[in-house]
């Protein structure tokens, strides 16, 4: 066993992990913002808006993330715009994340009793005000745990971006394997790093969930 190459492998993987984290953050934050906008549209009760949002969600939930990455990477190029793997991956993951977050959050919004809508409605609130001051503050509490839980899916989802050439943790692993021919060592380390990113989040999500159930 060559110690030098072990440290080279590990340090290169850790450097590439920055990009996995960056892509995850972008997807999660931007996906969250888009998801919140979609949530308003989805629960607005305005027919065409609801329908359009539903179609959007069905598309991103009903097709493989990998294909979505291809569509953004190659599809946008067809329009004559060069897109880097970073941009294509950010866009695809943002939209994919937003679709799932919207559905998670819609479930939380719909679990708020109807009386809360009626009380605020009879106090002359409009829809946006109802959401802003009455529904979302209550839905937020129940949304935290599943939202944190979903962030794990986002991190694992970023691994697919390696296929369109984005140099993240997975891609770095592939490159290092080609250079060192030590696939088991390389991919074990890759798995370990993903686990270190994901486990604290899923542990925290479970803890939040337990706290919420205890509070009821």
């Amino acid at each position, binding site marked *: 066993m060559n110690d030098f190459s072990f440290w080279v492998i590990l340090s290169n993987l850790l450097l590439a992990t920055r990009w996995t984290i960056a892509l995850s953050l972008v997807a999660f934050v931007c996906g969250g913002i888009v998801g919140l906008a979609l949530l308003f549209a989805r629960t607005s009760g305005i027919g065409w808006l609801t329908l359009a949002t539903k179609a959007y969600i069905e598309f991103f939930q009903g097709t493989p993330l990998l294909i979505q990455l291809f569509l953004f990477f190659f599809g946008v190029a067809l329009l004559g715009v060069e897109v880097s793997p970073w941009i294509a991956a950010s866009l695809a993951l943002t939209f994919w994340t937003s679709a799932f977050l919207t559905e998670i959050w819609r479930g939380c919004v719909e679990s708020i009793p109807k009386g*809360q809508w*009626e*009380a*605020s409605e*009879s106090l*002359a609130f*409009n829809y946006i*005000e109802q959401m802003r*001051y009455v529904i979302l503050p209550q839905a937020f509490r129940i949304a935290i745990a599943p939202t944190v839980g979903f962030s794990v899916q986002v991190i694992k989802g970023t691994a697919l971006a390696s296929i369109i050439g984005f140099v993240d943790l997975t891609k770095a692993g592939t490159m290092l394997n080609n250079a060192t021919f030590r696939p088991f060592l390389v991919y074990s380390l890759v798995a370990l790093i993903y686990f270190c990113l994901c486990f604290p989040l899923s542990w925290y999500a479970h803890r939040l969930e337990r706290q919420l159930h205890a509070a009821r």
Partner: protein
Amino acid sequence: MPLVDIKDVRKSFGPVEVLRGVSVDVERGDVVAIIGKSGSGKSTLLRCINRLETYDEGSIVVDGMNVGDARKEKKLRDLRRNVGMVFQQFNLFPHLTAAENVMLAPKVVNKANNHEAKLLAEETLAKVGLSDKANNYPSQLSGGQQQRVAIARALAMRPNVLLCDEITSALDPELVNEVLRVVEQLAREGITLILVTHEMRFARDVGTKLVFMHLGKVHEVGPPKELFAAPRTAELQQFIGSVH
């Protein structure tokens, strides 16, 4: 002109006609008690007045404003500012304190500043006898207290009419009176009230008008004391007998 003028209102849920031509006049300062069996359409009628529910035919005019026309957001908002509502299940906002529950609509809807809203909360909570509970959350209050906060919350919008849908039905018997006393006080102050209730004594003693609903229609209407003393129809007689 009546403050609330309900004319020939019809409303169906799918194939079921729930309101079958209902007409009621409510004058300023009236206390209208609506009684009737479960399923006779009392809640639906009440909810049509502030457009929580839409009706199919007829007209409802509140303070000169046609409820059927209040489709645009601005008109709907004006209507609902004018018409307060209190529910059987209180429906307080659980994430806000009593005072914050009262202050929210004046701030959000009427753009009152924090100081104005605070004064309103103090005033209305005092009116329902809960000044000392201003900083409690709904979960820390009894049912009767919660319902009184809900009344204060509705009053803070300074409505011309207050709708109450069986507001004591979800309460333990010993908590009913504290809520009824508040409502009686409001009646004395001249606030126009329309209440669906099962409290027959309250309807008789405080009401200025009794509406007996039966199968989606106003079956009998008149001064409460007269109707209770001498119901004209067998249905009302039977109903009064069944709740006493």
